[in-house]
Each structure stands twice: as C-alpha cells, then as structure tokens.
C-alpha cells in the first residue's frame, strides 16, 4: 500500500521522506531554475482513494486506460504543487496560491509508476508580495504525458493578512458568471448556445477532507490541516487549499466533456477569495464558444467556484475537444 517509494520507510523510522526539504520557505531562498525531482511515485489504490475522499469525486477513480482501471490525472495536481517540499521545509510554507494553468493528457492506470518533476521558472514582486512561478509535469510509465501545470504562488505571506482580497493580477478578460436561464447542459456540444450553464458540482468541504488533501497524513501541519496550523498564522479557522477547487472544476468539466477532458482538457484558474472548512462551494460554468487549440477545435467555457453567499472564490476558463454524436 505505498504511495511513494519512500513512504514505507516511515514505519518505525525517521520522518524524513523525500518531500521534506530543509530550506525555510521564504522568497529570498528561491533560486530560478531550481529543480524538484524527478521522482517516481506509484499511483496506487490508496492514493486514488485519498483523492476520491478528499474531493468527494468517485468518478475520478473509476476511469479506464487501455482497458485497465484508471484515475483522473487531476489527482496529481497537488503532488506537483507540493514538489517544492522536496527542497523547502513544508512546515514553514505560508504561501498563497494565486493562479493555476493545467493541461490534462491521459488517465493514469491504477498501480502505474509515474514520474513527477518541476522547476521554479520565474519570480516577481507586486504590491509588496513576492510571487514565484513553478512549471511541473507528470509522465506515465511509458513516457506519455499525464498532466502539466504552471502555477503562481505568493511564496511567504501571513495568510490572515491577505486572504479575502484578490492578489492575482487583473485578468485580461473578466469572468462575468452570466448564464442563460435555461436547464444546465449535462454534456458538451458545439451546438450549445453561448452562455448555456454547465451542470454544476457542489461540495461541502470537511476538515477531514482538507487534512487528507493537504498532506496532514504525511506529517505536515498547516493552515489547511488543523486548527493549530491555522492559529499559527493568525487564522481563526482552517482555510481550504485553493488547489481543491481545481478538483471541483475538473469534476464538473469532466462530467460535461467526458473523456475528452481527461485527454485534452485545459483549465486556467485564478484564486480570488478563500473558502473555509465546512463551506458549501459550487463549481459552475457557462459556455463561451469554439476556440482553436493547436489546430484542434475546442469548446471553451467560463468557469468559477462560488460559496453559499454567491461570492466567487475561483474564476477562470476551461476548454476541451467535444466528442460529438
């Protein structure tokens, strides 16, 4: 029941798995070009069940690849995000995830040994905060790409001081959240009218799901995993990890597009407001129209996540091919 090559060594041993670096997670400690990995991990049944539980997304663990049971590549997104723990001490991380660009390429066979790796490619300072950009990817045993991401994060901040206000750069175009007053579409089609709503996906996130998703089980204590971790940075309650919203949007888009989202879906998301433990959040979308992606015809939608008060916590766009017929 291994989820990484090193994890079994925890039994009775020291707590020094490969993802625990030693550098304090501070902006000034970032080196551009710094590599994380590559590491081999096995996407085993346990890793899949952890994701299914944390995201309340059973469909993510019920795919097939070449006839074998497979899982959604979205389950590797957080593994890729936390790659920087390989060099930095994860328990010193007080970052704020602001932006995520993700491309899905293939389901992952359950039991498959995959390779993950990434690097810091850019840093910049804006409004007194230090941002860092990481690019990372995962490949299957046969070398096929599974998922690639480019994410932006404020490397070290005091979360209580900045959550609640957008830190992301102003988008080139706005996500309006406008949708036609019609029955939401269950399946993607190029025939759908502009602004047709997608069938939404709602989740009330629990502390246990946040603990599992944000690596509480791997020995980390942070603003997501427990009250003490939140209190340490001035939060009165735990805040959900932004990357969980990528999973909610992926769940909605995969249900909408079907397998084509798993093999050719793209998500570009900005995290604009926090959401907290026990919040009910809903992934929503509205069809925009056809776009060309590397010579292929994709259907693009505006997507967002909103809380019960209707406040958007993540906004962005998704596109993927459409399997017509």
């Amino acid at each position: 029941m291994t989820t990484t090559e090193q994890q079994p060594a925890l039994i009775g041993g020291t707590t020094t798995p490969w993802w625990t670096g030693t550098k304090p997670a501070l902006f000034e400690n970032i080196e551009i070009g710094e590599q994380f990995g590559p590491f081999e991990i096995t996407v085993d049944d346990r890793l899949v069940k952890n994701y299914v539980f944390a995201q309340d997304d059973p469909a993510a663990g019920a795919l097939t690849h070449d006839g074998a049971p497979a899982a959604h590549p979205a389950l590797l997104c957080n593994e890729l995000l936390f790659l920087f723990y390989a060099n930095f001490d994860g328990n010193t991380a007080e970052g704020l995830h602001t932006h995520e660009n993700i491309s899905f390429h293939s389901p992952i066979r359950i039991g498959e040994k995959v390779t993950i790796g990434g690097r810091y490619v850019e840093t910049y300072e804006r409004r007194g905060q230090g941002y860092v950009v990481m690019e990372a990817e995962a490949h299957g045993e046969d070398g096929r790409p599974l998922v690639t991401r480019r994410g932006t994060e404020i490397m070290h901040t005091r979360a209580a001081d900045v959550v609640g206000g957008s830190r992301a750069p102003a988008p080139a175009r706005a996500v309006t959240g406008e949708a036609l007053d019609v029955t939401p579409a269950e399946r993607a089609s190029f025939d759908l009218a502009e602004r047709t709503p997608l069938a939404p996906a709602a989740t009330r996130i629990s502390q246990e799901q946040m603990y599992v998703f944000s690596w509480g089980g791997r020995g980390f204590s942070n603003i997501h995993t427990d009250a003490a971790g939140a209190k340490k940075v001035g939060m009165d309650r735990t805040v959900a990890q932004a990357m969980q919203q990528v999973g909610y949007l992926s769940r909605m888009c995969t249900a909408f597009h079907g397998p084509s989202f798993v093999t050719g879906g793209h998500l570009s998301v900005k995290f604009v407001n926090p959401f907290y433990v026990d919040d009910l959040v809903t992934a929503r979308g509205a069809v925009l129209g056809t776009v060309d992606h590397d010579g292929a015809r994709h259907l693009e939608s505006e997507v967002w996540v909103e809380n019960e008060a209707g406040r958007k916590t993540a906004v962005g766009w998704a596109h993927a091919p459409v399997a017509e017929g």
Partner: protein
Amino acid sequence: MTWRDLTDPRVVADGVDPEAGLKEPIFENLEIPEALGPVTLVVDDHKIKRYAFTQDDHHPWHLHDSPFGGRIAHAGLLSNDLVQLFTTRYAASRTVGLHTEEQLWFDSPAFLGDEITLAGTYTESYTRRGQDYVVMEATASGPGGRSVLRHRGVEILRTRPGDVAGRGSTGDGGSGGPGRISGTADPDLPVARLGTDTVVPGAALPELEFTITQEQASVFSRCGEYVRNVHSDLAVARDGGLRIPIVQGQQQCGLVTAMLTRFFGESLFTGGRLRVKFVAPVEVFEPLTVTGVVTAVTPSDSGSLVETEVWVRRADGRLSTVGWASATVPAGATGAEPSTSTHP
C-alpha cells in the same frame, strides 16, 4: 442543525476550545457511576463516506442501497462514537489510554439521515497489574428510541502506550472469553459462505486484508474535531513512547465488523454480537489480515445460531485483536439445517 460527531468543531472558529473545562482523564477523577452524554448526532452522507474511507469498506449497502431499504450505516459506524462518549466529560486530547476490550450488540441498522442519540455510563473501575481500568456501558438509539447498537468497553484510562501495548496488557492474550482463540481454521474445509453447506465448525470465515494509513487512522481518531492523540499525531505518539502512531483498537474492531458484514449479511445488523480483546498494538502502515473460524452451528426455531472466533493478524504473524462473534441466520442458511446441532 444536528452535527455528525460528538462535538461540533465549527465552534473553534469562534475562539471556543471544545475541551475547555473538561476533566483530566485520570483515574482519580472518575465517578462511578458517571453519566456520559447524551449526545444526538446525525448519520449523514459524509459520516458514512468518511467511515468507508477510514475502514476501506465501500460495501454497496452503505454507499448505494441495502436489503433494509435505503443506505445504511456500516455496522461499526457508531461504535467509536460510543467509545468516545467519555470525552463529553473528559478532555479528548489529554487522553493517553489503552482500549483493552470491546463488546457490541447490533440491534438494528442505522439509516442515512437518522438522528441517533448516544448515552452511556461509567459503571465500574478497578486496578490490575498496576494499571487503572474503567468500564463503560453505552447505547445508540435511533428514531422512536429504536436500539441500534449497544456497547460495553474496558479501557486503561491513563497509561504510557509504548510501555504496555503489546505486553498482553489485556491480561490473558485472548483467553477470558468463551475460550482461547486459536487463530486457525481447518485448511481442508472450504471458506464458510451462508446459503451453502460450507458453514460448519472449523470452516474459515472470509479473509480481508487492510493496511491502515496515517490519513485513515487520523480521520478515524477524530482529527476532524481537532483532537490530537497517539493515533493521529506523531508528536503525541512519541511522547507516549511509541515510534509511530498506532491504529485505534476500535478501528480494528471496525475491520472485524466489515468482515462479519460480508459473512453474516443482514443477520449481523439485527441481532449480531461481537466481543473482542485488543492484545497487541498495530502501527499505521502495518498490513493486517482479518478473518475467523466457525466454532458452532446451533439450529433453532428461528434459524441457526452461528458462533465464530475472529481475529486480526499482523504481518509478523502476531494476533493483535481476538474475539468472538455470533448471529442467528435464517433457516436454510447453513449446511447444518434442518437436522441437528453441529456443536463440536
């Protein structure tokens, strides 16, 4: 809105410490008898899915539909709520105890959406081999007062788990019940399966394999209520003399009830009985095998009473949990019927 657990952790956001004012869980603070609870909680979708996750038990009766009409809770779902009822009076995160024995009576299933009232009493305390023990009796009742689950548990209230876990602290390594647990079945007999003539003394029960990860142990042992203990937190475990967190005894008990659900089926939920002793610790990530053996089949007017021994075995071969389980199955469900008793 009724919450799903003994405590509502949402109060933490308001600066409330859920354990403030609760007693230190030490022998000197016990009152016998002492009422524990009552607490009313709801069996909601997340509570069932969470238990499915911690126990790796995705049986369709719990997640889809059951012969009882609708989704039902796992047989063991409420058992840890009963064990933990003492934390309505005592501080949960100050507890460094050792659960040594558990008895459960399964009276009826709990359904998705049921509000369940839990109430218990510390009925007895005693000192043996330098350890202070306390006995709790508790019940879980559903709508209309319907009995769902009854519990009797024995626990060492305050100890250093690293010093006593694994030394046979239950006193007898498995005896003290109806008989010593052999941990073996007749290898020449097929695995017992109800509805066939395989349910005979000596036949093995279905075997299930589990490995409880840290995530599963932590979620089971109430990390969602911000409780820190030797099951959920490495630092607390090390303070207790352990090298790594150990799996809660009641979580092992739940592995046994999962196996019994697969063997007894509906009969477990409407009259099944289980008694287990926790005789050796289980570390997180330690592979486990859960099984048992049929010891007696006694036909009666209402069916057949099937008695079994059950156990959890660690990868090193040592038994960590041992016990006895029984249920009355419908007439015709065993090979013994309708002729005579097959008591050994």
